């Protein structure tokens, strides 16, 4: 009898924890920001502004939260998933295989130590730069003079198939393994750690965003955004407001999801 009551208490406690977790991850649609003729791929936030890569128009734009263009930098060659660190915007050019840096209105080029074939995404964390090398099916991790290659072409654990985005968080590398329909996690040595999203039948895992507690995946063909904890446990699937989502940014309990085909940003509140 005593063990029965203890069991009930444990179940009740678990249920309460689960409820709290679900409440903490309950993203709700707030509004849509129309983007006019911008065809967005990547998004990063800077204060009250958002930066977008406009791939069809070969430019990077800075917009306010109503979608009004504040600044525009033209002449990029198919800019894809961008990154930001200390007010520097890192722009991978898919066509030229270079990474450009926008800083205070000036544009410079990042020194790369390894050749690439179509850079689809970039992540920057202090002196570490990770780029998604799309056609070589790998991630190149550059730490000052050291270069580490993550993954190789394939479909098994630790193998990649057309990676399109990359994130660095807490000494781990999260890769949008687009056409393997999942996110894969590596450590800095290149060792495979875990897979996220396999059970949800993601159609194309185009973008990934990692926070202190969550991993968020943009499912381009599935028109969904999937939210997981850091261990890959599914917390929430958000759908209904997406038209080919490619990337996610999270700032101050707001989630911004860019719609490539919809030419808009869907905003969600926690």
């Amino acid at each position, binding site marked *: 009898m005593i063990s029965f009551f203890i069991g009930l208490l444990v179940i009740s406690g678990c249920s309460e924890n689960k409820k709290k977790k679900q409440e903490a991850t309950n993203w709700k649609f707030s509004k849509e920001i129309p983007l006019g003729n911008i065809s967005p791929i990547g998004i990063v936030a800077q204060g009250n502004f958002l930066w977008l890569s406009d791939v069809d128009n070969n430019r990077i734009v800075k917009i306010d939260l109503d979608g009004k263009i504040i600044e525009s930098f033209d002449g990029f060659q198919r800019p894809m998933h961008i990154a930001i660190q200390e007010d520097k915007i890192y722009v991978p050019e898919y066509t030229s295989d270079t990474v450009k840096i926008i800083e205070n209105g000036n544009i410079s080029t990042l020194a790369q130590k390894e050749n690439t074939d179509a850079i689809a995404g970039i992540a920057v964390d202090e002196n570490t730069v990770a780029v998604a090398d799309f056609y070589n099916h790998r991630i190149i991790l550059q730490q000052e003079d050291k270069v580490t290659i993550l993954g190789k072409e394939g479909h098994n654990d630790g193998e990649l198939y057309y990676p399109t985005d990359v994130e660095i968080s807490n000494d781990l590398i999260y890769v949008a393994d687009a056409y393997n329909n999942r996110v894969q996690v590596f450590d800095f040595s290149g060792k495979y750690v875990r897979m996220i999203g396999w059970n949800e039948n993601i159609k*194309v895992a185009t973008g990934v965003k990692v926070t202190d507690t969550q991993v968020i995946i943009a499912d381009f063909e599935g028109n969904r955004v999937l939210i997981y904890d850091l261990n890959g446990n599914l917390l929430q699937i958000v759908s209904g407001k997406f038209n080919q989502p490619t990337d996610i940014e999270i700032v101050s309990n707001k989630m911004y999801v860019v719609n490539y085909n919809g030419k808009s940003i869907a905003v969600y509140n926690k």
Partner: protein
Amino acid sequence: MKNIFKQTGLLVLILLFSVTSSTEVNAQTNDQEFTYVKVEVKGLACPFCAYGLEKKLKDVDGVTTIKIDVEEGLAYLTVLKSKKPLKETLEKIVIDAGFTPSSIVFSKKPFTLKDEN
């Protein structure tokens, strides 16, 4: 003397004719300097795919312009006629870019693109 004038006149006429013909040939060459190619591709679903194909097709010798229609799965190329690529070459590029070519059509005249209608 009369014959000399006749012969010189004939020579001048021949020269004039040949210059005119040559200009016309040049004009025809200018008009027909390009070959237009329409490549239909299966699986051209996302911008990474579309612009990946664009990147690979840029390496084709003699290509002057490339336009990609993601929705229709089409790539339009303008190529110097003197460097008209083989169909097999284009098929290989499409396959190397990760796609399956459906059809490749060559034309002497530009194709009408959807956004030009």
